[in-house]
Each structure stands twice: as structure tokens, then as C-alpha cells.
């Protein structure tokens, strides 16, 4: 490319291409990928959630967890990947102290098709904002290609005293995590903006939750490496990114760095860089040319796994409802607006909360409005205050139960509770955690719509002032006078229309 071409390109803005490598721990599995140690290593003292197999003791053999294969294939199906008839495992050999065997058991597609999934794409629910981001084109959003999905083991964890490894006299190794099932998802470089990446990540985390394969609120359960190239140039990989917010920041930084290099006619080298979270910069780790030799070869201790058609269809039928299916149901069956439905569906916990509220009181529109307009506003406020962490927005930070929302919706719809009052009660209910019904009992502001108590009040009034019956025959205002007395008695809680009808009936009967 000559300099003129280059200039033209720069004016248009060089084409930014971003690809992702996502690692998702299958935390919802009971046990590790190749042994009976728990998947949940997070509560164990260092090196206690281990056994001869995950410590790689001599003579131990990997025993494949078949559930892990099912979980991984569910992910593949959700990503519209093809699942081969046969899958197999490979060894990726490299020396590192966090690998008990000094090789990682993984999958590898160079010599044959070995991985659990390949050549997929992912469709999105899409942002719930009414105004889509200009750089987040619809065509892009709806189709990110997935190169492959593979199942592998997580290594152990190394802890350093100092941030710079060279400054340390020692490091500590904890093998509790070693052997936990990990699914690696590799995308094609189909993203063209950091925002697109972030939206994508939020949505796939949500998808993992729908699938029930992982709990993204656990630290380190979903991790992401990024590769960035500009104007068809060399690809730079960014590793060591701790959260999705940092993913976005690292892409901004790396894009700027590469643009600056190009502007000064300096070549972008293909390399792996680390994200320095404190300084918010990427730092060269090692250049791609001198990349390690992994000496991949088929794992001899795990025979090829024949999946077959039956396996695929069995897993498919056992799959839970996915976001797109749920969205369709909300719009078509529940008659919720697309806007509201998307907000619900885009967070599985909120969507599940909605479903549970519905089971208490089946009024989708009213309940969805309470959740989207009232509840989420509150959560977003707290979110902005930085009270949530990791990769999920938190319903947990509010002590609210689905039945509370159902009760308030029912009070408004069935008992004609005034909306302004209802909102106040709902706020009180959220703050205290008590049910709206109880709050109303305490406040006595519930509208009285039941006929029984009203009739009793009317009869009490007529008993103490019997002349009203006579007067009512000539003076129609008597009815309003009685209503006034009832309102006074009940502090305005009776439904006036019902009361008026009952007063009329009572006067005529007498």
C-alpha cells in the first residue's frame, strides 16, 4: 500500500477488527473435568480441593466427566455450532508451574476435527435502548461468527506478592482450580467497536446463565482475551484482562496505540500484550514469532468420544428456553411490548424474577411494568453507586421477592389502589422487605371495595340518623351526605362508586 492509499484509509478511519477468545468455567458441574474433586474450588483452603488425578501424580489417568461434554455441547447449540460425530482431546505441552502435568488437556483442530463445536454464529436479542448505537450496526449485531468451541481443563493459580513477577522472591501455587472444566469460545474478528464487544459479552454471559452451565457472578468464571488489528494489519493479542469493563478499556487503548504507530509509519508487530489494569495500558509480553512450541498430539488416555445424532437430539431436548425463544413468548403470548420484553430477557435473573412473579399473579403487563419501571430504576441507581461487582448486574443487592411485585400489581389492578400511593408502598416494601399487603394493613390505606363492610357502615349511619331515610325521598343530596359520612368514617378508603350504589340500595330498601 503506498502512502496515498494509506492516507485515504486513515481519513475514512482504518478498519478496526476485533476477535474474542472467551473462557467460561462450567461452574454448575458438580465435579472437575477429569476427576471427582469439586468444581466449586472457591471456598477451599489452598491445595485442599485436589486429588492424585488433578495433581497429575504419576500413574493417574484422566476420567472424562460426561456431563461436561453435555454442558459444552449445549453451549455449542446455543452458538449454532456444528457438533462433530466424534470428538477427541489433545495435549498442549508447555512448562508452567500452574500446570500439574506440564501439559494442558484440551482440543485442537489442526490435524483433525477434534473440538466439540465448530463454525457457528450467534444471533442477538439486541440492546434494549430504543436508539441503537450508530457503530453497532444491525447486521454486525446479528451475526458474529464462531470459529470453534472447545472443552479443556483450567490450570491452577499462581499468586505473587508483587505485581511484577521479577520483583518476587517467591510465588505460591494453588491447584484447587486445576482441572475445572473450561469451555473456550473463539470468534472470528467480526467486531468493529469496543462497545459492540461489551454488548456481546453481556449477552453471552446472560446466555450462559440461561443454559445453566455457569454462575457468572463468581469471580473468574467468565474471562476474555481480545485480539485487535487495524486496517488489515498484524493481529495483536491482549491477555490478562480481569473484567468486561476492562475489556472495553483495553481495546480503546490498543486501538489508539496501533493508530499512533501507523501514523508514525511504524509497523504493528504481531505479538501478545498484557493488560496492565493499574496503569490502563497494554504491555508487550512476547512476540508471536518466538511463540512457544506446544507439541500438540492426541491424548492417548482418553479414547475418542463418539457422540452421534442421538446425543445431539437428546441434549437439545434437555436444553432450557433460550433468550430469543423467551423474547418471542413474551411478545406473542404475554403481549408485552418488544422494548419491555427485551429488557426482561436480557438479564436472566430479572426474567426469572418476572416469571416467578407471574406464578403468584398472572398479569404480565402490569408486573413487567413494575419490574422495568420501578425495580430496575432502583437497581441502576445502586449500580451507578458502584455497589455491584463482577460481570453481572445485581438483583441480589435489593432484598425483594417476586411475590412483593405480584402483590403490588394485584393491589393496583384488582383493588384499584391509587398508583401514586402504590409507588410509595412499593418503595417502603423494598426498603423494609415487608410485603405490600402488610404495609397496607398497617397504614390502613387499602381501598375498601368489599360490599360487606360498606353496607355495615351505611346501616350504622341510618340507625343513628333514621330521619335520613325519610329525607332522601325528597332530597337527592342525602346520598352525597351519607357518602361524606362514610368517607369520614373510613378515612377515604372506600371505593366511592361502590359506596354510592350501596347507599342508594340501602335507602330504597328501607
Amino acid at each position, binding site marked *: 500500500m503506498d502512502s496515498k492509499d494509506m492516507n485515504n484509509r486513515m481519513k475514512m478511519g482504518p478498519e478496526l477488527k476485533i476477535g474474542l477468545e472467551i473462557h467460561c468455567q462450567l461452574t454448575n458441574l458438580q465435579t472437575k473435568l477429569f476427576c471427582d474433586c469439586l468444581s466449586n474450588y472457591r471456598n477451599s483452603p489452598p491445595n485442599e480441593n485436589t486429588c*492424585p488425578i488433578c*495433581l*497429575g*501424580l*504419576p*500413574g*493417574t*489417568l*484422566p*476420567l*472424562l466427566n460426561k456431563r461436561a461434554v453435555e454442558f459444552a455441547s449445549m453451549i455449542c447449540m446455543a452458538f449454532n455450532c456444528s457438533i462433530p460425530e466424534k470428538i477427541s482431546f489433545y*495435549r498442549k*505441552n508447555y*512448562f508452567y*508451574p500452574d500446570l*500439574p*502435568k*506440564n*501439559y494442558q488437556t484440551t482440543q485442537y483442530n489442526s*490435524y483433525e476435527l477434534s473440538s466439540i463445536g465448530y463454525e457457528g454464529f450467534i444471533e442477538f436479542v439486541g440492546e434494549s435502548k430504543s436508539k441503537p448505537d450508530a457503530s453497532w450496526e444491525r447486521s454486525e449485531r446479528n451475526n458474529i461468527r464462531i470459529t470453534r468451541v472447545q472443552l479443556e481443563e483450567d490450570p491452577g493459580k499462581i499468586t505473587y506478592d508483587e505485581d511484577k513477577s521479577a520483583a518476587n522472591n*517467591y*510465588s505460591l*501455587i494453588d491447584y484447587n482450580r486445576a482441572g475445572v472444566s473450561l469451555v473456550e469460545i473463539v470468534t472470528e474478528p467480526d467486531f468493529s467497536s469496543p462497545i459492540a464487544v461489551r454488548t456481546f459479552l453481556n449477552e453471552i454471559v446472560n446466555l450462559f446463565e440461561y443454559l445453566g452451565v455457569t454462575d457468572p457472578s463468581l469471580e473468574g468464571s467468565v474471562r476474555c482475551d481480545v485480539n485487535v488489528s487495524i486496517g488489515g494489519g498484524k493481529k495483536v493479542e491482549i491477555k490478562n484482562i480481569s473484567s468486561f469493563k476492562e475489556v472495553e478499556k483495553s481495546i480503546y487503548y490498543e486501538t489508539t496505540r496501533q493508530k499512533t504507530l501507523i501514523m508514525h509509519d511504524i509497523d504493528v508487530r504481531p505479538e501478545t500484550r498484557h493488560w496492565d489494569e493499574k496503569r490502563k495500558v497494554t504491555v508487550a509480553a512476547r512476540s508471536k514469532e518466538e511463540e512457544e*512450541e*506446544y*507439541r*500438540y*498430539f492426541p491424548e*492417548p*488416555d*482418553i*479414547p475418542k468420544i463418539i457422540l452421534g445424532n442421538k446425543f445431539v437430539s437428546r441434549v437439545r431436548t434437555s436444553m432450557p428456553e433460550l433468550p430469543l425463544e423467551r423474547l418471542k413468548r413474551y411478545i406473542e403470548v404475554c403481549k408485552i411490548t418488544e422494548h419491555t420484553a427485551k429488557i426482561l430477557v436480557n438479564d436472566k435473573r430479572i426474567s426469572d424474577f418476572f416469571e416467578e412473579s407471574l406464578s403468584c399473579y398472572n398479569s404480565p403487563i402490569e408486573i413487567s411494568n413494575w419490574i422495568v419501571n420501578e425495580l430496575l430504576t432502583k437497581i441502576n441507581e445502586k449500580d451507578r453507586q458502584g455497589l455491584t461487582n463482577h460481570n453481572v448486574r445485581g438483583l441480589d443487592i435489593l432484598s425483594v421477592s417476586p411475590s412483593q411485585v405480584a402483590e403490588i400489581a394485584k393491589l393496583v389492578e384488582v383493588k384499584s389502589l391509587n398508583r401514586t400511593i402504590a409507588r410509595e408502598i412499593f418503595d417502603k416494601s423494598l426498603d423494609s422487605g415487608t410485603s405490600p399487603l402488610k404495609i397496607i394493613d398497617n397504614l390502613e390505606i387499602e381501598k375498601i371495595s368489599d360490599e360487606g363492610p360498606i353496607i355495615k357502615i351505611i346501616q350504622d349511619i341510618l340507625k343513628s340518623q333514621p330521619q335520613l331515610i325519610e329525607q332522601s325521598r325528597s332530597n337527592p343530596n342525602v346520598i352525597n351526605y351519607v357518602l361524606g359520612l362514610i368517607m369520614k368514617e373510613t378515612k377515604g378508603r372506600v371505593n366511592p362508586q361502590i359506596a354510592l350504589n350501596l347507599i342508594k340500595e340501602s335507602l330504597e330498601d328501607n
Partner: protein
Amino acid sequence: MKSLHELPACVVSRKIKEQEITAEEYISTIIERIRQVDHKINSFISNNFESALSKSRTIDKKIKEGLNTGLLAGIPVGIKDNISVQGLKNTCASRMLSEYIPPYNATVVSKIEAQDGIVIGKLNMDEFGMGTTSEYSAFGPVRNPWNLGYVAGGSSGGSAASVASLQIPLSLGSDTGGSIRCPSSFCSVIGIKPTYGSVSRNGLISYSNSLEQIGPIARTIYDLVTLLNVISGVDPKDNTTLPKNYEYKTDHVDHILKKKYKIGVLNDLIDDSETEVAENTRKKVKQLKDRGCEMEDTRIPLSNYALASYYVIATAEASSNLSRFDNLRYGYQGSPEGYEWNSYFSESRSKFGDEVKLRILLGSYVLSAGYFGKYYAKAQKLRSMIKREFDILFNKYDILLLPTMPVLPFRLGEKTLQPIENYNLDVYTILANLAGIPAISIPGGLSKEGFPIGVQLIANAFGEQKLIDVAVLLENIEGFETWIPKI
């Protein structure tokens, strides 16, 4: 009258169960014999005498109380030092693992103990099973009981020599490319490499996972079958094992003869052997023919390529299997404290012996990105072609017959400096490992100078019973269990 240590295990076990002798007496005799003899042979790396004695007393107590005891009641079994026994050092004859004590039992060891067998000690071998002579041991070479200046064969040299020298009646070896059969041939005992997937490898420190199997060594086929029955079977702790019917029998000669086995004789491999080996093998062919077996000449055209295929696959797998030895978690005395981990890795991995280093280098080379297709993939292709050749042969024959080793035992140190010549010795044994099929080495006779010669039989996958049948025939023809070296 024969001394206790000379008797076959099946005879002694009966005596113990009938309370003619106690297990404690027997184990004491065995310990005494090992103390007297093994300093000449060097077949043991470590022993388990005290706990063996206490186990023997437990078994005696069980028998006295009239409780049931297992198939191996009171019988000592030696275990190759690459098979894990909980609480006993498992060195693989390497400085690298000189202090490693496994916290668990190999499945085969659990099975032996469940049948009241007694682990008597751990047996010498080539480091990590890499060798054909048992000279590459950090604990010194195993000596051939028939002539102490000669090699015992390998890599399960200790397993064969200890049984041949009447120290113990039974042992376990492992066979990656002939490691059970070669020393069995050189020491005049019976050793079988079972079908791949019939014996659990859980607890066997891997050299080359896709090739190796654990197998028994004995002085008579009757003892061998007992131990083979004990250790065979599908194991949930080894995904490569298969569920099959593993009940092997030692049939009567008359019954076996009625089966009219058709045996293919690999004549060109016999011709390629040393003269005395060839002559002895032909003698075996004639003996079987005289007994009514149908003998026919045949060949395996691809056998010339087997050695290359074998060494590429074996070293590739070994280079990865042996990666885990870095002395961070276990190994020898020494601590990573104060080291940068890269330099600690190089320091600790210098503990490997030269032959092991050579094979790790070879294996790393053939797996390198640019060479994978040229070496590893090609080797695997050849392997499946060899398997197919065997399939075709077994459509025609029940069994194939060939020498176990192309040579007689040779002097210690004679071949250690010639790796290729050493590797060439494996050419008759590796065939069964590549194809995953069972093969047995049976004592065939002695050379003029008194060195053992083994004859090898190969059957199709899970065809062990046929090998056992013919071994029974050969044992009855020659009575080889009476050939005992004088020490």
C-alpha cells in the same frame, strides 16, 4: 523334597489353605531366599518385608477362623517399580523419583491385595521402562540368573530375574515394546503382554500410554493364568479398558489338542535371528506339528517399518508423559526455594538418565509443529496399516509363532553404547504393542552355552485363551518349569 521357595504358587497356596503350612512360614522362607540371592541379581529396588509378614499373619488368622481367602492367599508378588503401591517408594529406577511415595494403589495392586496376595517388594527396571537390558537403572543393572555377567533383558528385568532365580513365584511387569517378554525370554520364565485395554493402567507410571500394558510373569503357565485372571478387567479408573469376559482357564492337553489350532509361522523373522535362536524356534514348530497343530509359513510384510513407527510414537508420548517431573510437587530431595522456576525446571530435569533424555529429545522433535505430519502422523498411519495386516492374518490363523528375541542374552555393557542396535532388538516384540494384541513369551530351551531362548506366540485382540492353551501344550511337552538356573 523341594524347598518351599521352589514350588509353584498354586501348589503353595493350596498348602496354606489346607493348613499344611502357614503363610507366615512361606513368606519368611521367601524373605530369607531374597536376602541370600538378590545381592547377586539386583532385582529388587526396595522391599516390603515387614508389612508382608504382618499381612501373612492376618491371612493365617483368616484361614484358622475358617473365613474365605482369595485366589492368591499368602502368595508374594513382586511389583515392577513403575506400578504404584501406596506407601512404598515408586522410583521408576530414576534419580528423578528417588523419594516419591504414591498416596494410592494401582488398580492391579488393589486387585492382588483383594485376593490376599502379598506385595513383597518393588522390582528393578530400566529407568521409566526405557531400555531392553535393565542396565539403564539408577540402582545398577539387573543381572541374568543364568550368568551374572549377562543382561537379564528389559525393561522388566527385575520382574523376570527375581522369578527365574526362585526368589518369588510371581511378579508384575509392564510391556511397552517387549518389556515383559524380552526379560522373560532371557531369563527363561513365562511372561504375557495382555490385549490393550484388558488390564487397567491406573497407577502405572506412563512411558507410552497407547502401547503399554501391565502383565504377569511366572515360572509355570498355571501360576501365570491365576495372576492374569486377578488383574484383568474393566476399570472405571482407566477409560481405555474394555468390558469383556476375562476368565481364562488352563485346560487339559487332550481338550486343547481337539481345538486343532492353526498356527502361522513367521519364517522370515526366524531366519533373521541368531542361529541357535532360529534352530530352537524350528524345534518348537516341529513339536507343535507333531502334536497335531496345523503349522503354516506366513509373513507380515510391513514388519520392516514397525520399528520406526514404534519409536516415533513411543518417544512422542514419553516426551509429554515425562514433562510432569519437575520436582515441584514430588520427586527427590530438593526444594525449588530460591530458584527462578525456569532454571529450577532445567536443574531438576537434569536428574534424568541419558537414555531418558535421548528419548524425550526424540519425542519432542517428532511432535514439533513442522514435523508432526512427517513423523508422528506417518507413524500412526503405519500403525493402523500393521493392525490391518494382523487382522488379515488372524482371519486365517489362530496364532502366530516367532522368536521373542532375535538374539541370545549378551554381556552387560556390550550394547549400551549403540542405541540403534539396542532398539533393533525390539523388532519382534513391538508388533504386538503396535497392534494392541496379546503376546506371550514361553521358555523354548537353552543354547549350547546354557542361555535361555524364548518362543513368542501372538493372538488377535482378547485371544489370550489361545495363547494360554498353546503354552500349556509347550509346558507339557518340555516341562520347562524344571529348568532352573544355578546361583
